[in-house]
């Protein structure tokens, strides 16, 4: 068994992993990325469409370009990366952690480190998760799998598709399938509003005259050996009108019904998860309840922009380096998700230093107000022209916002 030793290990070499590793190296510590695929960049490489990098690189890039530019910075940092290594286990060994990575090239790697940054990303929810009944024919794919097949492997998974869920990957795949020569017969969304960006509704659906069925439940998938149709029923006044159900003939169903942080490994290590995000609870430094284990990016909560992922992961990497150096945490305040706020990440802030939080709202609203209250006193209030659950909101808190916080103070973030 090959043994390696570093100050820190980052699990996952996507945007989050590379950004975290960069910061750890920048602090003068040794760092290794363990990545299960044979390339860095993660899922970005199959996202060949543009729309990435406006914040991180100040220009609009495709997924592969974002990944490659990030990788160039990463390579320049001098951090190591092992590719084709799947981390199967992390053991606690006193003040060190021992990771077991499985690899065809290196056998089993035993990697001993002081701290770990979790950056495994997320996975797609599937048919079982949303319990679509019906037959089990060939031709049902998650949108991300279809994206991989089309964009990287060069295969068309079907000729007549229906897309369930109006998340951005589903919308992007509606356009991609159309461009690749398939006919997309509709996108079905259970909510009364689309889950994806308006820009994608316009450029991926309207450009191709693809119908969007809002407030429709998918009530069944039909077919023998291969998909033959999808049945959907309208939802009116909160009730599914099964008697109005109708079938859309198709040979392919793509599912774009949400993403879930991939925390199986975290759970094995004893990391506690927030049921609102399915990602770990962390303090203001992005450290989980297990000392020395940090989390960032989509493994912490599902982001909508890779630019935010990179920004968050850089903070986690820097915090990880400080922790290794023995810079302990200051006093921390709990952050409460107030009215109309689904969650905040992280869920603690440090009153002595600047803090950045990401949050998601529960509502769709124009002219909303975001309020930060310290023990019921409003310390920050900001107008938001438009908010919706699918668009992440960021909040920056300065020490002056948190001045006067006592040991039992509670910080609440609300949307009104």
């Amino acid at each position, binding site marked *: *068994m090959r043994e390696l030793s570093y100050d820190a290990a980052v699990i996952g070499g996507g945007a989050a992993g590379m950004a975290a590793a960069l910061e750890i190296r920048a602090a003068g510590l040794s760092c290794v990325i363990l990545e299960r695929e044979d390339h860095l960049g993660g899922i970005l490489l199959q996202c060949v469409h543009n729309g990435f990098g406006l914040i991180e690189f100040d220009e609009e890039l495709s997924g592969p370009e974002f990944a490659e530019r990030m990788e160039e910075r990463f390579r320049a940092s001098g951090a190591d990366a092992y590719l084709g290594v799947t981390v199967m286990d992390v053991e606690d060994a006193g003040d060190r952690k021992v990771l077991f990575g499985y690899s065809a090239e290196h056998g*089993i790697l035993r990697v001993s480190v002081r701290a770990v940054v979790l950056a495994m990303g997320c996975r797609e929810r599937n048919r079982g998760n949303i319990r679509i009944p019906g037959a089990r024919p*060939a031709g049902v794919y998650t949108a991300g799998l279809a994206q991989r097949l089309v964009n990287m492997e060069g295969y068309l998974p079907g000729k007549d598709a229906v897309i369930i869920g109006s998340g951005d990957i589903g919308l992007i795949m509606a356009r991609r399938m159309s461009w690749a020569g398939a006919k997309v017969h509709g996108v079905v969304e259970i909510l009364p509003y689309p889950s994806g960006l308006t820009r994608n509704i316009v450029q991926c659906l309207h450009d191709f005259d693809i119908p969007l069925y809002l407030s429709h439940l998918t009530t*069944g998938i039909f077919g*023998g050996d291969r998909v033959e149709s999808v049945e959907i029923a309208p939802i009116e006044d909160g009730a599914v009108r099964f008697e109005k159900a109708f079938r859309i003939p198709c*040979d392919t169903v793509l599912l774009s019904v949400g993403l879930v942080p991939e925390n199986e490994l975290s759970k094995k290590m004893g990391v506690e998860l927030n049921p609102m995000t399915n990602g770990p609870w962390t303090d203001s430094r992005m450290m989980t309840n297990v000392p020395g284990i940090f989390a960032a990016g989509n493994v912490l909560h599902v982001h909508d922009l890779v630019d935010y992922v990179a920004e968050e992961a850089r903070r986690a990497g820097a915090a990880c380096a400080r922790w290794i150096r023995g810079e302990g945490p200051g006093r921390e305040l709990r952050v409460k998700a107030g009215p109309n706020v689904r969650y905040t990440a992280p869920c603690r802030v440090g009153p002595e230093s600047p803090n950045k939080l990401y949050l998601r709202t529960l509502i769709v609203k124009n002219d909303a107000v975001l309020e930060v209250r310290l023990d019921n006193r409003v310390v920050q209030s900001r107008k938001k022209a438009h908010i919706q659950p699918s668009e992440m909101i960021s909040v920056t808190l300065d020490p002056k916002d948190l001045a006067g916080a006592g040991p039992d103070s509670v910080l609440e973030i609300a949307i009104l």
Partner: protein
Amino acid sequence: MGSKNAAGGIFDVAIIGAGVCGANIARRLSQYELDVILLDKEADVSFGTSKANSGIVHGGFHHGSKYLKARLEVQGALMFDRLHRELGFPFRRCGIVVAALHEDEMRVVDQLYRQGVENGVIGIEMCSRERMLELEPKLNPDTVGGLYAPAGGIVEPYRFVFSLVESAQRNGVEVRTSFRAEKAEREGDLWKIRAADGSFLSARYVVNAAGLFADEVSRAFGAEEYTIRARKGEYYLLDRMTRARPDRVVFPVPTSVSKGMLVVPTVEGTVLIGPTAEMTDDKTDTATTREHLEMILGNARAMIPSISENDVITSFAGQRPVLEEDFYIEPSRKVPAFIHVAGIQSPGLTASPAIGEYVKDLLKESGLRLVERPGYDPVLPERPRMFDIDHYRADALVAEDPGYGNIVCRCEKVSEAEIVAAIRAGHTTLDGIKYFTRAQMGRCQGGFCTYKILKILMRETGMGWDRITKRGAGSELLSGRL
């Protein structure tokens, strides 16, 4: 799966249907100096009733001793330990509890107990509420009492079939898939069997173990007329991370119609809940329905309240072949050298090893000469699975074959080498690989690994992209190349 004999070869016994019955019969016959062929119309073995059922080795108390199926159930259940040692399929005697939620159900429990004792089941026990909650702490605290059958167990049904077939093959049995026996006629002492694709073969004896389609096969041979009806059972599968996993199989108190919906801690660590029981007209209909799935959740929660719909990773349905109350296993009275193994519904999986034995005896009585084959080897070599082994053993394996280090299915920890082994064992559809290795069976349901498996499958078999299927012709996965 390939063919070592030329088309038109003559076999001593042809077994039609490579489900759990056909596989057991084939393996049993592989101990003798016989040319045996196992046929199936599907692209792989175990693709019918045997792949979608509860996977229970029953406790021997559900049926009265007057039935053949009760005798075969008790006998078959006892044979599993040895089969498990020889073949290594996943099996565990975790015990079965029957939970009564109302006092009036205890009358039925009492009757089950006496039935079990009469059937000769060892260790069966009537339980108080306290004993039940001690045996299974996750049970509904309103449980009033129940029954405990410690010898009951769980098995992964398709892997049971795969290992039986593999063992039979190693001992000379030929397997031919995608062979739909459509027509048969007598030619002297032989049955000449024609397949839908025009190929044919001849056999001295025929065993009809065609499950849901045993009636059609019987008709094709001019044997007895009967109608197999299909009873559909729907299931939910829960993630192995669920907190609701019981230690034992939990049954409700049965009704006159069915054994009811169970909660099964599968051998692989997931939890299965179901099945429903609904007669259908279409034997190929394995669709699930919203109402039934809701019913399953409701019923399962009545026994184990902590079951959550958030733990569901997939749903599926299977069909059981229903003929009459009892199994129908006997030689045809209408045509020679033809044995019916029909109407094998529950407890068919449990009884199947005994069915193998029983059919071997029927063939012998019908004149088949059984001479022990000297080279017979009942033991299958162990197939390493990354899921089961520690890091040190894993490291040694990767040194032998780097394919073991490439984890293809991260949810179920399946390596490339295991997928290659499945393909080399003849499982060349995505479903075949799934049932053999468990890749695509975990929480992501193939979202991450499907494309990797496609590529390995093409590389290993040389098949083009247009020949890759989910479960045989018609279920092609891809429709074009860019």
